[in-house]
């Protein structure tokens, strides 16, 4: 958790929301009285707080890093869920907003700008984490508005293809903006990015707290956990707000929604910009955590992966999206450690490399899910009703 004192009720609200996300799993609901719910909540919190230690002890330090990345992906997926899940707008270039956030952090928190503007910034720019984070979110949100404004008054398909193009364009710019002014350092990317420090605690080095030594990956885990909780909290509040209900109305029937007096264009734009902001903020966290950004982290495949998380888990359902995020973030590692040795044992060589197998599985999952379980593994109730093809055919 962050070291800033938060007001008690807000903190409880955040944690309770975090719990509620996991908690809609049926089994928990089944056994829960009020008393049990509180127990389950503290238990879950304890489990999450101890997670990096267990992972470290059982699987090794490298896996704690993987868990950290999984948290980042969950944040991203939750952000995309606002766009795709709540408002029903297909965004195929979501990773571009992540890239905007990451490069924003990289430029505003590294010596890199000294190369481009030695007069203005002799040591580069080194803003604090709490300055850059909102900046990154706002910048990404601004890009979202720029992109959404022309396309959102048209049919949803256009948004899909324009975002697809935008994702690619951002990458082209990142790759080429090293001349004439070296802004992005081209394909080499920007390195030596300042690590995140929260209230003067540097997260890049091992810290001693109450005699427990917390390595950097553990510290980042707690930071990401806090931010994930915040995103879950925001998502849930949004979902149940007037805005969220309007989004869902638009998703289900745009004409009916606008007949009810909903300003569909502005609300769609809001959903798009908000999703972009979450993407930008996660991007900033990513840059701080990684210490290095380069264009190849932001390929189309990453967008597809995040989309896959949302679709697989269950569009519009926060618990489902978290499940999807966890599954898909861990899958590549499982493939890497499982498929290669298996093939070696069976055929004596690697026939299918894990990377393309992963993408094949993602593509296949998108098709199969849409055909057989369109509402995802953990469907949201409303969404299932809506996506059930047979039912719609009957009513037509």
């Amino acid at each position, binding site marked *: 958790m962050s070291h800033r004192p938060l007001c008690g009720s807000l903190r409880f609200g955040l944690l309770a929301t975090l719990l509620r996300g996991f908690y809609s799993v049926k089994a928990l609901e089944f056994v829960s009285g009020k008393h049990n719910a509180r127990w389950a909540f503290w238990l879950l919190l304890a489990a999450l707080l101890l997670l990096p230690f267990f992972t470290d002890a059982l699987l090794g330090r490298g896996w704690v890093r993987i868990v950290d990345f999984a948290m980042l992906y969950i944040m991203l997926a939750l952000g995309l869920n606002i766009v795709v899940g709540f408002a029903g707008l297909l965004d195929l270039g979501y990773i571009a907003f992540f890239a905007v956030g990451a490069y924003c952090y990289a430029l505003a928190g590294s010596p890199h700008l000294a190369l481009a503007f030695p007069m203005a910034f002799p040591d580069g720019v080194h803003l604090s984490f709490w300055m850059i984070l909102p900046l990154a979110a706002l910048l990404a949100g601004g890009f979202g508005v720029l992109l959404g404004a022309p396309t959102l008054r048209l049919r949803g398909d256009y948004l899909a*293809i324009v975002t697809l193009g935008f994702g690619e364009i951002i990458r082209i710019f990142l790759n080429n903006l090293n001349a004439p002014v070296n802004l992005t350092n081209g394909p080499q990317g920007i390195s030596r990015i300042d690590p995140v420090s929260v209230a003067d605690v540097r997260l890049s080095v091992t810290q001693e707290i109450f005699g427990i030594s917390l390595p950097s990956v553990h510290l980042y885990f707690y930071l990401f956990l806090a931010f994930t909780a915040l995103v879950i909290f925001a998502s849930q509040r949004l979902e149940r707000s007037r805005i969220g209900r309007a989004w869902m109305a638009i998703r289900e029937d*745009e004409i009916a929604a606008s007949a009810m007096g909903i300003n569909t264009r502005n609300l769609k734009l809001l959903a798009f910009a908000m999703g972009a902001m979450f993407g930008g903020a996660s991007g900033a966290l990513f840059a701080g955590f990684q210490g290095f950004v380069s264009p190849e982290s932001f390929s189309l495949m990453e967008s597809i992966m995040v989309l896959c998380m949302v679709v697989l888990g269950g569009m519009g359902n926060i618990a489902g999206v978290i499940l999807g995020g966890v599954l898909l973030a861990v899958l590549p590692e499982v493939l890497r450690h499982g498929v290669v040795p298996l093939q070696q044992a069976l055929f004596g060589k690697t026939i299918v490399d894990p990377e393309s197998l992963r*993408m094949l599985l*993602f593509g*296949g999952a998108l098709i199969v899910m849409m*055909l057989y379980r369109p509402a995802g593994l953990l469907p949201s109730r409303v969404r299932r009703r809506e996506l059930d093809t047979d039912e719609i055919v009957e009513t037509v």
Partner: protein
Amino acid sequence: MEIFLQQIINGLVQGSVYALVALGYTMVYGILGLINFAHGEVVMIGAMLAISSLTALLGIGVPPLLALPLSAGFAMLGCMALGYGIERIAYRPLRHAPRLAPLITAIGVSIVLQNLAMMVWGREYHSFPQLIANSPHSIGGAIINDIQIIIFILALAIMAGLMLLVHRTRLGRAMRAVAENQHAAQLMGVDINRVISVTFMLGSALAAVAGMMVSANYGLAHYYMGFLLGLKAFTAAVLGGIGNLRGAMLGGLLLGLIESLGAGYIGDLSGGVFGSNYQDVFAFFVLIAVLVFRPSGLLGERIAERA
């Protein structure tokens, strides 16, 4: 002036390829109201099939002038089967589902195709066998190859053929009827499923030819080539007015011109700030500009503002 003429020639040749691919998008859109995201990958598969079969045929001593049409036919058949399969598996079951569903399966199909192609053909570039002696002609100082002339003329011929098919035959009338109103067409005895399948197959055959042309023009093919090509061809279709066949042709040629002139002059215009490595960006800005100022495209009639 030579540069200008040269860019015009390059633009027209490239544009005629865009037009062929754009026709595939626009036909499917006209009939189903669906953007077939996987179309770009069909182009790529077509190019790969053509190159593989061409290399194999030349390897066993078939004369080049016979091998070329044979491999073109092979690629077209392969792509037609692929187009039929895509429609059957990924789109037909979802014809009455909400719009988001077929869009997501389309993305899935395109990812699967791309990775399958990578497994079959690898990550490396495949070169198109040099069949036609590269004899450059000079027109007012600009240079045009035989291959480019063939591509341009063939593309125009194919487009003319398609227009005849759509406007003069029974099948074409059925296609236009389904595009106009599916239910009414069905009541008039049109087999909708068959018409839709045929449309997909036609579009895929055009894609195969286009893929072959691109790889012959550049001499190369790659498993990732379908993505950008598809995106640009879609832009061409939107520029001309999606759903409109003439629009797709016009849009394709125009986009080719915009792109090559843009890439040729951006360096001078921006004082050397931007170079021709931004060539791929033009299509995108054209797309945005069209969507802002004239969403129905140059020749399009209407775009329903339905979600």
